[in-house]
């Protein structure tokens, strides 16, 4: 009886180990297999406050580019989480950039101020979308590593803990 119990515990521990190992490997896979990843496009734009956004200024940082719109429900719901992410990890080298798609400029500015967004938002254009290989739905988020390569793409409303995990992994990824 007790031997069977010990066996069951051993199987459970083994299964848990396999599960964790699989997930940890999966989590770091995007970071370690950087060589085959596409280079992140560089773009220069004027943000909605009149400031300049030049992505080459973010070289060496982890950059999260979020295509969104104030008129898009799930996009708007994500914004407070991006604000929190920027605040939490900016000292470790994270830079969030919002690219707005077909927003009314006044509505966008009101939204920006209402939510006290702490990262630059640029009005999007086809050139930027094309540079990222096309953006055919919102929200769409790209994760760029310190190596200036695209490590991840999320389309639609995404479990934010997944995005945060990937951001942390990229922030801690060894420099090549």
């Amino acid at each position, binding site marked *: 009886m007790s031997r069977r119990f010990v066996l069951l515990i051993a199987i459970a521990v083994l299964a848990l180990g396999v599960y964790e190992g699989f997930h940890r490997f999966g989590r770091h896979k995007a970071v370690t297999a950087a060589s085959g990843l596409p280079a992140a496009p560089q773009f220069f734009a004027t943000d909605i406050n009149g400031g300049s956004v030049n992505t080459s200024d973010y070289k060496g940082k982890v950059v999260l580019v979020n295509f969104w719109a104030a008129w898009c429900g799930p996009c708007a719901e994500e914004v407070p989480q991006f604000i929190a992410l920027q605040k939490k990890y900016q000292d470790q080298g994270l830079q969030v950039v919002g690219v707005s798609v077909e927003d009314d400029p006044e509505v966008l500015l009101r939204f920006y101020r209402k939510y006290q967004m702490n990262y630059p938002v640029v009005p999007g254009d*086809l050139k930027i979308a094309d540079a990222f290989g096309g*953006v055919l739905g919102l929200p769409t988020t790209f994760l760029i590593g310190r190596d200036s390569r695209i490590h991840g793409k999320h389309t639609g409303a995404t479990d934010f803990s997944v995005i945060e995990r990937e951001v942390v992994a990229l922030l801690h990824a060894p420099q090549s």
Partner: protein
Amino acid sequence: MNPGSTSTFLLRLSLLTALLTAMVIASAQSPAKPANTANDVPAASQIQPEELVQAMKSGSAQKPVVLYVGPKAFYTQAHVPGAEFIGPVARPEGMEKLRARAASLSKDGPVVIYCGCCPWDHCPNIRPAFAELKKMGFTRVRVLYLANSFGVNWADKGFPVAKGE
């Protein structure tokens, strides 16, 4: 059953009841699906991508008029071949354009509208476009079901696309 085991049983029963009550309350308080979205479109009025591709290949009588009611930025990058650009119907100018175009169509003919700007249950354009066409008397209007977006559920699946304005 001795008094000790009875009280243990009652304790477990009350804990289980409390747990089930909490689950019921939590499910009742979970966010409702957004109102006034594509969720309001009945399943019978939806068309799946594969079906639309087949319908587009059919003879002229059955070939639907396809109207795109989302943002131009997405249409220019990729759209259903032959689809006409209307624009976001959630905005007054888009709605006006839809009414104007619909006025020249046969109300008995097949019409398919689609957007795919956002996840289906959050799309601001589908529901008003569908409701307007029904109000105008269209009897064969259907909505292309794109669960996540045009990119994920059409372009990435390899269905045909056209580019440009």
